[in-house]
């Protein structure tokens, strides 16, 4: 074999390997989805979506769980959106570049990598115990807000950074203040990107069970919450609970709940992708 033949073979070999690597994640996911779908789809009906939890698998539904998930979703968005976006704006537009802000930036990136259960413990101490919120929706949403705040801050900064300097200069040169420039130019131009980041981070929050279990969200809640101070459960906790039961019927229930949870996350991700594409099409600098 000549040298060039050898090289060509290596090239080919890597290509095959690369394709394998690319598809391995997708294949595993597809197998999993297929499995879940076969098991769970037949379980999903109107009763399943509108029934309270029950000890009897065939009568148990996910009403409290998906309502709790929606509550958490909305509350977390309301809390995390203004905080994260404001922090991102401050860091990108206002803060002077010095050692202190450098330190802040590095640590915010680090926070994005902290395991979610640690946030659960933090929430348990601050919100549940110190602020006496108990295992309420509010405590859960605050905890999840902490969890996704770093992601929102980072994506907000990325989106803001993508707005060219020349737009800011143009605004300043017409007598606009920094705030006017941020409000009238930078935010509208980067809003699609910011929203995308927020939705993606919310879709992560929706899938979390661990931190909510730590703060004391219950698996069995016999009513749907009416206010942010009520106790709650969410889909991931319900799923976790059902999969740990020995009876096979509960596993079927879990599969049904997983399909609903996945539908919510895929919907959120779909919205995010749509917004991002629209933004890219709309704004060409």
């Amino acid at each position: 074999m000549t040298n060039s033949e050898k090289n060509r073979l290596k090239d080919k070999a890597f290509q095959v390997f690369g394709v394998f690597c690319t598809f391995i994640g997708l294949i595993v996911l597809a197998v999993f989805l297929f499995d879940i779908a076969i098991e769970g789809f037949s379980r999903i009906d109107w009763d399943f979506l509108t029934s309270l939890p029950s000890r009897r698998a065939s009568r148990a539904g996910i009403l409290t769980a998906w309502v709790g998930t929606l509550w958490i979703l909305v509350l977390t968005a309301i809390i995390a959106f203004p905080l994260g976006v404001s922090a991102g704006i401050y860091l990108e537009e206002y803060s002077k570049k010095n050692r202190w802000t450098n330190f802040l930036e590095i640590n915010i990136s680090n926070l994005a990598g902290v395991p979610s259960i640690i946030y659960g413990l933090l929430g348990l101490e601050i919100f549940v115990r110190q602020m006496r919120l108990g295992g309420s929706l509010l405590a859960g949403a605050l905890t999840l807000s902490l969890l996704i705040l770093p992601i929102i801050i980072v994506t907000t900064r990325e989106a803001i950074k993508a707005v060219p300097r020349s737009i800011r200069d143009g605004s300043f040169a017409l007598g606009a203040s920094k705030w006017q420039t941020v409000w009238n130019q930078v935010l509208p131009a980067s809003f699609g990107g910011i929203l995308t980041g927020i939705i993606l981070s919310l879709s992560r929050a929706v899938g979390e069970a661990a931190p909510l279990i730590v703060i004391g969200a219950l698996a069995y809640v016999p009513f749907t919450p009416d206010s942010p101070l009520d106790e709650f459960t969410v889909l991931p906790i319900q799923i976790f609970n059902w999969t740990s039961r020995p009876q096979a019927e509960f596993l079927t229930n879990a599969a049904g709940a997983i399909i609903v949870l996945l539908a919510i996350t895929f919907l959120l991700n779909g919205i995010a992708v749509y917004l991002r594409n629209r933004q890219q099409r709309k704004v060409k600098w």
Partner: protein
Amino acid sequence: MNKKTTKLEAKELNAYYGDFHALKNINIAMEEKNVTAFIGPSGCGKSTFLRTFNRMNDYIDGFRTEGDILLDGRDIYAKDVRVDELRKEVGMVFQKPNPFPKSIFENVVYGLRIQGIKKKAVLEEAAEKSLRRSALWEEVKDKMDKSALALSGGQQQRLCIARALAISPSVLLMDEPASALDPLSTAKIEELIYELKNEYTIVIVTHNMQQAGRVSDHTAFFYMGELVEFSKTKTMFTSPQDNRTQNYITGRFG
């Protein structure tokens, strides 16, 4: 000849980016309703100097000035000067057209909106007036609600001029306003400058000697942060006093 008034003046101006000494002891006085061209090799400090007149350098970390910049005899770096008020007087047009990603109308009236003007009639009148002055009205009057990004580069640059004129400045700073444009658009901009100097004091940075010759009354030649020569444009191009000026305008370096 009527009496000339000084509009813009720099006195013993030094400017620094951190440790870098970008402008060195500059003294210059520019007359009202006159076009002054700044020329010189790349990196000699033309843009830096131009941007001190509306304090656009304020946003650069580590930038500082010594000495005075006077507008109508008032020091614009004095403590009581409000930058937004200054920029109503001193408008700026950039090298690359930078329309906002908004409608043509919103681009023109942006400076007025910033000042809190909301009356539709006032805004519409100002928009038409500025667009007429920047010779763009006929081309855009039927599509004021369309995105400004859909205009050609030359139209965008005239829109940026209209945007600057809308807040009625008395000075117009232009940093290579035609360097990103095709020859036809460039000619239009030059024509426009010629028109505008009846009402405005204009300072234009250019790399194009012919352009400086065509549009300006006075020319300032900068070299490595120094103002080497400042005189009537005709004088400068026919009998430059300094060797470096001579070399530059005859194209021996730069």
